[in-house]
């Protein structure tokens, strides 16, 4: 449906109550795949990370990755879930070329983690608690590339290529209960919920959590219930929405689209839908009914997983501080304004600033350097800021500035030296001879030289035209190649005029 034909959002909310549900797939960053020893690596040559098991060759058998179980339990615990005393894998049977065995090894009626919750805070300050039904383990599918068609989609393609490198990569699928009462916040709830899940998996270190690489993928279920009715509407499931902003946009679009269809007397088809980033619209995928028959049955090639209670408690003790609580604590400790703090969070530099403060820098200096010059240089190089310098180096740089050894301007040169691999800040200062000249004698000599060529300056200052000092200061700074404290030069020039 073209966007022009959608019902106005406020009007849609007047007529209907949106009901949401989310399935978030988290790709774990284990060294090897879920059921075989192949490397779990992104970006390798097609079908190089494969073996008889993940290629579904005759005779291949799965072996469970213990690290993936551990990551799944930690994620379950971080979502406040119960961890099953025993659980099984199950086969989900369906034919598709990206699924080598033509069944996906997943979990069905016995997920490893169940019944948790996650409280999120919206920009308005509204708190929403999302009830989690389950978090279960499964394997990812391979990647299909459709060739020869205009759209890159399967329809109209001449042929398709399959890369099974991703086939068998461990996933945790987090399924929410139905979310009611979202009202006009529904799109923001979607974005904030997925952001919160992403933040948790990142804090746990169980996933690379890069949405653009598909490490975190969201399927958003949306249905509309007419005001005054207690019957749920038919839902659609928009698949693989791969950015936070898209989650928000897709939900908003579906609310407006469904409202338009329903108001015009139409019915919503229960189906999956594709999200189109370019047009900001969804289009029909395949019909999906509650009676879809995947012929689940317990995976006979694997034995049940029975994590001991002792192990679960050991893993619980390894959980990091919940990200939301940590943010609140750090903002208070650092005395940042909401804007300053959001800047750090949005730049994903919380860890770096925290470590820099721990290494002795003031919070404001740490923030200024990381979100300022370092982020700028990283952006130029197209890399992440944390790959350029370490928090310890930034703290050392800040200390050199605080002690007067460097000006901010010299500090930026030192930073460039550090990034260029010339050593730690003190070594760069030494090697490049960048320290501020603090010897008044040297400065006075330079001032005398400058005055010799501009003899009227002192008279102007004495006449009250203090700004005339600027020309001398500029000349001195130039002569000293910037390695002087401009404030001190100004003081000395004014002293001379007062003589």
């Amino acid at each position: 449906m073209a966007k022009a034909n959608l019902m106005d959002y406020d009007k849609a909310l007047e007529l209907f109550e949106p009901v949401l549900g989310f399935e978030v797939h988290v790709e774990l960053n284990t060294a090897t795949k879920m059921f075989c020893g192949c490397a779990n690596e992104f970006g390798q040559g097609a079908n190089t990370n494969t073996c008889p098991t993940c290629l579904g060759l005759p005779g291949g058998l799965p072996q469970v990755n213990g690290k993936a179980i551990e990551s799944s339990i930690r994620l379950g615990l971080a979502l406040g879930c119960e961890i099953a005393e025993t659980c099984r894998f199950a086969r989900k049977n369906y034919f598709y070329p990206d699924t080598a065995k033509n069944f996906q090894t997943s979990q069905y009626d016995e997920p490893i983690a169940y019944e948790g919750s996650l409280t999120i805070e919206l920009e308005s300050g509204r708190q929403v608690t999302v009830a989690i039904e389950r978090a279960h383990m499964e394997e990812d599918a391979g990647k299909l590339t459709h060739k020869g068609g205009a759209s890159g989609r399967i329809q109209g393609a001449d042929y398709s290529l399959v890369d099974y490198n991703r086939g068998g990569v461990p996933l945790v699928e987090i399924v929410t209960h139905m979310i009611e009462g979202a009202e006009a916040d529904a799109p923001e709830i979607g974005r904030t919920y997925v952001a919160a899940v992403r933040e948790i998996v990142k804090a746990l270190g169980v996933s690379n959590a890069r949405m653009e690489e598909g490490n975190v993928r969201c399927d958003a279920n949306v249905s509309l219930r007419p005001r005054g009715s207690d019957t749920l509407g038919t839902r659609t499931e928009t698949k693989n929405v791969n950015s936070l902003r898209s989650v928000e946009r897709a939900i908003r679009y579906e609310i407006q689209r469904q409202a338009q269809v329903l108001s015009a007397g139409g019915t919503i088809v229960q189906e999956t839908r594709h999200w189109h980033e370019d047009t900001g619209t969804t289009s029909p995928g395949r019909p999906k009914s509650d009676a879809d028959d995947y012929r689940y049955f317990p995976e006979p090639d694997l034995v049940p997983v029975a994590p001991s209670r002792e192990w679960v408690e050991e893993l619980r003790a390894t959980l990091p501080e919940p990200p939301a609580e940590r943010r609140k604590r750090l903002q208070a400790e650092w005395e940042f304004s909401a804007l300053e703090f959001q800047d750090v969070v949005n730049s994903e530099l919380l860890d770096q600033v925290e470590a820099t403060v721990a290494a002795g820098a003031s919070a404001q200096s740490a923030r200024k350097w990381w979100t300022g010059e370092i982020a700028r240089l990283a952006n130029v190089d197209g890399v992440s800021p944390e790959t350029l310098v370490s928090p310890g180096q930034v703290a050392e740089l800040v200390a050199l500035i605080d002690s007067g050894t460097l000006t901010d301007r010299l500090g930026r040169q030192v930073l460039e030296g550090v990034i260029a691999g010339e050593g730690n800040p003190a070594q760069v200062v030494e090697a490049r001879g960048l320290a501020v000249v603090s010897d008044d004698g040297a400065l006075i000599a330079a001032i005398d030289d400058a005055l010799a060529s501009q003899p009227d300056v002192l008279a102007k200052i004495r006449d009250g035209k203090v700004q005339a000092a600027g020309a001398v200061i500029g000349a001195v700074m130039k002569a000293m190649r910037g390695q002087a404290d401009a404030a001190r030069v100004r003081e000395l020039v004014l002293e001379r005029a007062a003589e």
Partner: protein
Amino acid sequence: MTDLTRISAAELSGLLADGSVSSVEATRVHLERIAAVDGDVHAFLHVAAETALATAADVDRRRAAGDRLGPLAGVPVAIKDVLVTADMPTTAGSKILEGWMPPYDATVVRKLRESDLVPLGKTNMDEFAMGSSTEHSAYGPTHNPWDLERIPGGSGGGSAAAVAAFEAPLALGSDTGGSIRQPAAVTGSVGFKPTYGGVSRYGAIAMASSLDQVGPVARTVMDTALLHDVIAGHDQMDATSLATDWPSMAAAATAGLADGALKGVRVGVIQELAGNADGFQAGVKQRFDETLALLSAAGAEVIGVSCPNFEYSIAAYYLIHPAEASSNLARFDSVRFGLRENPADGPITSERVMSATRGAGFGPEVKRRIILGTYALSAGYYDAYYGSAQKVRTLIQRDFQAAFEKVDVLVSPSAPTTAFKIGEKIDDLLAMYINDITTIPANLAGVPGLGLPMGLAPEDGLPTGLQLMAPAMQDARLYTLGAAIEQLLEASWGHTLISQAPELRTGNTRSAEGNN
């Protein structure tokens, strides 16, 4: 000069060890035997003559150099075509895998190579091990060496016929519902289904994962035990493999040859399988009763036990097995390996190519079981079929537990009848399925089972088999008692059973290399 094809693997390994025979000689005579008789028997789908001779020469070289070699080093072995082999095509008896060269060896095949056995080739089987006669092979049936008009049992009819026709002293089989033990019974050979998890399934093309087990096939209990020792043990590639330190099965078999090995042993006769039920051939029952009398005379305590839930075992098996098979066989879709067929008309889409390939590549019995299994797992039927079958399975396990509280070993005929004629039951599938009534309970419960010759049925002069079953993990007990009973029976006959097999017509009826 001793005919090297007629002696046991144990005897042959003795001759190899003391240098009186080379592995190349032993291998060559078996290849010659295959060339002479396999045109009639059709035990082999593929014979790797050159590779086998090269392997044998290598073993001889290393033996001459003084390398320490395993007990079966240099002994030829046949491999059921359900096991993947990196140097031989692997078809599982199906057109859908015709010509497929696997990129890897099954764990048991790797173990054979590491122990320096000499693989001769791949043996025929019912397609994907679905059958009791080898008539469901896409490459034509195997013929029983005792009577070429008759079936050699199934699904491992090729492995059983190969040892019974003296084409190989040893073979590997796989047993999902009796595919090692029933062919052993009808060909007068010996076969062992290990405890579930005792032998790795990695590289065994799965039919019913929770029932499949790879095992040894031979002409004597001792030879079976020697091969068992080569293939058993934990494998991290198979999650259902048991992390158990298995005792030597050969040592257990040797213990059975001591005087009085049967004295005081409590032998349980399963009343439901004792031969009184419908479908049991009179001659089978007669030989079974005679064997029980011999056991009593040897000091064993023969006790009747009841396993009331065994009567549901075939029904449960034909739900669990097709259900798992329908899922296991889903991977045969033409995308990554094997046959590819385009639809005769209409658009070429992946779905339609998969459908056309499976339609062309699978035989009728495979299709039948995929349909049965798909149905049994369907929403709304799962609880009634697969769910109920799993409950029956638990009841059968309890029957075994209760019985083993009273006895050390359970016995029954290995199969209710002697070998039937090729074509006789192909249109009466229920009759075919019923043939596995004696062997299926052990698969459902995961317990070990040994089948060994029990004499020739008086009415048709064809072999009958005795089955022994022990609690899970007690495989060694079966080898001790099996060796004792084998010795007892052979003493009563005055010869081995296999020595009574008729001579086969020999002639250059089969090319030594390649598929046929």
